[in-house]
């Protein structure tokens, strides 16, 4: 008897495309492989195709072009057996609001098949971890936005799926909720489960992932580990100096002067602030401040930050991720 056949990738997409009828936007020719036990963060501005990708993986949408296999099986037409292995927590979702949180959780666990779900004790532990334990027996109609969001996540997590899909999971979550979510994602991954999460949040969630897929206008920009993505920009500290209102004609000469400071890589900014990239951390700061003050400008605030995913996005597209308005969700 030969060695056992290797497990197929959990997700294998080739040339995956989907267009919404009205806007024509969606996803274009995406290639992607996701292994068992992997955590993938999908990051991009509104309209970049994050939610569309998750919906395709959840078999909620059928691709217009290309191929998509999940656990080695074609995603279209979706079989109930395939769907039982996948749990999708959309960015918003309804509940049976006259029922309690626990009853909703029981319902979705049962719909997914009791065998696949955890014990009631584990369900109680999950409710406690997400600070819903005391509210579990209240009708969902009485829940706050954040509590509904937590319940939506728990309905997906509690089924212990092989592929967990989370769309903007941090929305509405408090600090304990975020901590519990991170711990659950790690635990699912440790148990061989795969997690794909889509997020607009750039500072924390993508760094929970093994790899980050950056999308822009439906296209794949890059997919790599967070460390590898940031390596290119290593040593590029961003120095942001907020200024009091000043005449616009003062700006160009000031920026020219700032560029002459040693270790300054790039100078930019908008009305009210200048932004400088430094290759030597905060070392150029005294010289920069001196030039600004000599120009007769009043400094309101100074902020130093290490490069992040927004800088990676900017380096690849020339646009800032936080201010992008390149499309619709």
């Amino acid at each position, binding site marked *: 008897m030969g060695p056992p056949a290797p497990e197929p990738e959990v997700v294998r997409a080739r040339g995956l495309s989907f267009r919404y009828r009205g806007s024509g936007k969606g996803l274009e020719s995406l290639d992607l492989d996701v292994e068992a036990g992997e955590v993938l963060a999908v990051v991009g501005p509104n309209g970049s195709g994050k939610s569309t990708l998750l919906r395709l993986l959840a078999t*909620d949408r059928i691709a217009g072009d290309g191929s998509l296999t999940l656990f080695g099986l074609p995603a279209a037409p979706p079989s109930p057996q*395939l*769907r039982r*292995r996948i*749990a999708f927590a959309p960015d918003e*979702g309804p509940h*049976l609001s006259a*029922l309690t949180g626990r009853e909703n959780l029981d319902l979705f666990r049962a*719909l997914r*098949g009791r065998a696949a779900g955890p014990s009631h004790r584990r369900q109680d532990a999950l409710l406690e971890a997400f600070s819903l334990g005391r509210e579990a027996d209240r009708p969902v109609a009485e829940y706050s936005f954040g509590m509904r969001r937590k319940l939506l996540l728990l309905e997906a997590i509690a089924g212990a799926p092989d592929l967990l899909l989370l769309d903007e999971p941090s929305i509405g979550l408090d600090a304990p909720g975020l901590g519990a979510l991170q711990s659950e994602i790690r635990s699912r991954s440790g148990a061989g489960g795969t997690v794909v999460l889509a997020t607009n949040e750039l500072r924390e969630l993508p760094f929970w992932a093994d790899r980050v897929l950056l999308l822009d206008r439906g296209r794949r920009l890059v997919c790599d580990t967070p460390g590898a993505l940031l390596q290119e920009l290593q040593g590029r500290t961003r120095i942001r100096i907020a200024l009091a209102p000043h005449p616009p004609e003062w700006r160009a000469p000031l920026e020219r002067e700032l560029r002459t400071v040693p270790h300054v890589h790039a100078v930019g900014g908008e009305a009210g602030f200048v932004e400088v990239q430094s290759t030597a951390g905060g070392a150029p700061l005294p010289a920069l401040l001196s030039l600004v003050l000599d120009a007769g400008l009043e400094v309101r605030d100074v902020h130093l930050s290490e490069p992040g995913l927004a800088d990676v996005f900017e380096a690849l597209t020339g646009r800032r991720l936080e201010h992008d308005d390149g499309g619709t969700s």
Partner: protein
Amino acid sequence: MIAPVLRGEWRLALRRRRLFALNAGIPLLLVLPLALGAAPPTHAAVVYTVLFVLFGTMGSAIPLLREGEAGLLRRMVLTGYPPARILLERIVAGTAVDMLQLAPAILLIVLFAPGAGGRELLLLSLGLGVALAAANLVGVWVAAVARSLAEGALFAAVVSLLLLHGAGVFRTPVPGSWAARIEPLLPFLPLHHKLLEITTGRSAATGAGGAGGGFWSGTVIEWGSGVSTALVLLFLTAGAATSIAEWISAEGRG
């Protein structure tokens, strides 16, 4: 958990006490004046039949459309739970809840009918059960076709009235006619005939397709045909459940 959707629907109906009380009370507002007043018994029976069938059709179509619009049905389908089971569990729960909510109304009808007793109540309940199950099934198809709650209400009313017309509710039976042969195929006829018998105090069974058979053979054919048609509709709904669930929960259908 066995039949989670059925349990959820049942719990939901019992938890919404105000809605439950309204659904039980509003039919009484129509039934009470007819049962107490001097309405011609045949007309009263027609009104009761129309009321009960519309109750079932709309009670199935409107919540299903609302859940489709909200995305709840979609969430359920994506769990991998078979759409046929989702829909059929809803129909069973819906029929049971409708029966409970209409129980005061049929009790009232039997109570004020001359000479009606426990046997009439039992047969009327059976006829109502078959009619409500069929109406709930029709409601599922209405929800699949309608694109809004308003369309759902309109389609439910029109389709129910057409089917009731097909069942001969709005006309005097003409034995031997083609219409009389179709009438027993519609699962609303046993309910209507039972209501006619109770309100008029006379037998209403048409005989074998209106061909002049005896009372028992007529009754057996009427009930057998009605139940068979309801079962055919049930199998058709189960067979098309995946498509129906897709249609109801498709985004942007409005």
